[in-house]
């Protein structure tokens, strides 16, 4: 469907100049078709430089996702659980793809990745911006025969899986903001959205969606309405996108395994190690109200603890908005 754009992006992925003529010959299409595909790639958020006499060049080289490279770098445990990896060039949302398949297909252990999401989503219709080949957007489906006791905690544990991945990749100052926003130096690096279908005490299907900023074009960074950062800017060495995906999937499957096996209780303490927001003043925003207080960490069920009017209260819903440090 998007083969033309994919082939062209592969041909220019190295970040060097390629002439329209060279690309047309290589891909066996007209130069006009190349030009059209370049415009489409740009419209998906990836900037391309065009210089007369030299050709086309990506502003920054990209590493396209590869099913084989990802599979090769999974831990043996993850290989055991991950039965199917699908890399899509362009899709609405990887979570939507898996949710739609729940009813008709066996999707336990299935992973869907996308180079570009047109409707990447966060909480309640919040958009997750995922420009072409610049982020990591993936979803994992998992079936529990019996909803585990720690299902509510899964939201926090997935944050742990992401934070662990970033530490293993050499990043520092990785924080988790309740329940699972991934933040570095108060700038958002990633988000997680869990969608669940099933019975509270019976079989349940969970779709875990994870979005990470890998190497965002600067124009996109300035367009997003909050402070964001990306992996490439935070790291002093060039980190392979496929390798990060493999590390992430390995951690996600390890957490899912631990939750299923009922050996996940220590994960809440790991979450606390990433909680750098204790003691910060914050607002908890729910659909119809705002509560102000001081963040006090989480209890063993993963509920948010907040000091409000001298009393520590517990919350299971809402979004934390931090008061900026003076």
């Amino acid at each position: 469907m998007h083969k033309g754009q994919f082939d062209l992006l592969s041909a220019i992925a190295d970040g060097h100049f390629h002439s329209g003529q060279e690309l047309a010959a290589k891909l066996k299409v007209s130069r006009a078709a190349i030009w059209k595909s370049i415009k489409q790639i740009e419209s998906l958020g990836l900037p391309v430089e065009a210089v007369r006499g030299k050709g086309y060049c990506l502003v920054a080289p990209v590493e396209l996702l590869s099913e084989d490279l990802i599979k090769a770098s999974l831990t043996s445990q993850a290989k055991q659980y991950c039965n199917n990896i699908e890399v899509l060039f362009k899709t609405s949302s990887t979570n939507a793809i898996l949710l739609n398949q729940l009813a008709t297909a066996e999707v336990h252990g299935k992973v869907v990745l996308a180079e570009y999401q047109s409707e990447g989503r966060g909480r309640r219709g919040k958009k997750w911006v995922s420009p072409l080949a610049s982020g990591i957007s993936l979803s994992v489906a998992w079936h529990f025969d019996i909803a585990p006791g720690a299902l509510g905690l899964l939201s926090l544990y997935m944050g742990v899986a992401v934070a662990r991945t970033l530490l293993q990749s050499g990043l520092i100052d990785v924080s988790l903001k309740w329940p699972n926003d991934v933040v570095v130096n108060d700038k958002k690096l990633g988000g997680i959205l869990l969608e669940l279908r099933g019975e509270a005490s019976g079989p349940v299907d969970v779709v875990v969606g994870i979005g990470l900023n890998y190497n965002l074009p600067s124009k996109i960074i300035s367009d997003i309405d909050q402070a964001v950062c990306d992996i490439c800017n935070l790291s002093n060495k060039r980190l392979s996108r496929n390798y990060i995906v493999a590390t992430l999937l390995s951690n996600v499957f390890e957490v899912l395994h631990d939750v299923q096996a009922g050996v996940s209780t220590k994960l809440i303490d790991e979450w606390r190690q990433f909680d750098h927001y204790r003691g910060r003043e914050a607002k908890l925003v729910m659909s119809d109200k705002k509560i102000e207080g001081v963040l006090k960490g989480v209890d063993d069920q993963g509920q948010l603890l907040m000091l409000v009017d001298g009393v520590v209260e517990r919350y299971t819903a809402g979004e934390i908005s931090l008061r900026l440090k003076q």
Partner: protein
Amino acid sequence: MDIRKVKKLIELLEESGIAEIEIHEGEESVRISRGSTLAAPQTMIQVPQSTQAGEAVKMHPASEESTPKADFADEGHVVTSPMVGIYYSSPSPEEPEFVSRGSSIKTGEVLCIIEAMKIMNQIESDVSGKLIRALVENGEAVEYGQPLFIIDPS
């Protein structure tokens, strides 16, 4: 109930020849039964009110007592909330509601989303029929067992 206690009970069951034990402790109860085809015993923990299967679903501030299901039972089939959380009538704010008055509904169709711990729980209908009415407003906090929809079963 303390998880270590439940674990102890499972061990006790495994050592004994008993097929099932049920323990009541105040408002909480736990029943552990040895499935005939399963090697490991199956556990079902029932905690009334706010917590289901140990899931953290307590809400604060606690809203008023939920209306008993029986109040609507003569109007039709009542779908109740399986958990505590925030009720959403549509997939996202820009999209239309999952169901509205008069919608015909199939078993397994998603009726609403309840959010807790940033998990979007899609609540499915357990019957087919026609929606008489929804009892909760978008964005409202709901309690465990609170009636959400009345459906005229077909």
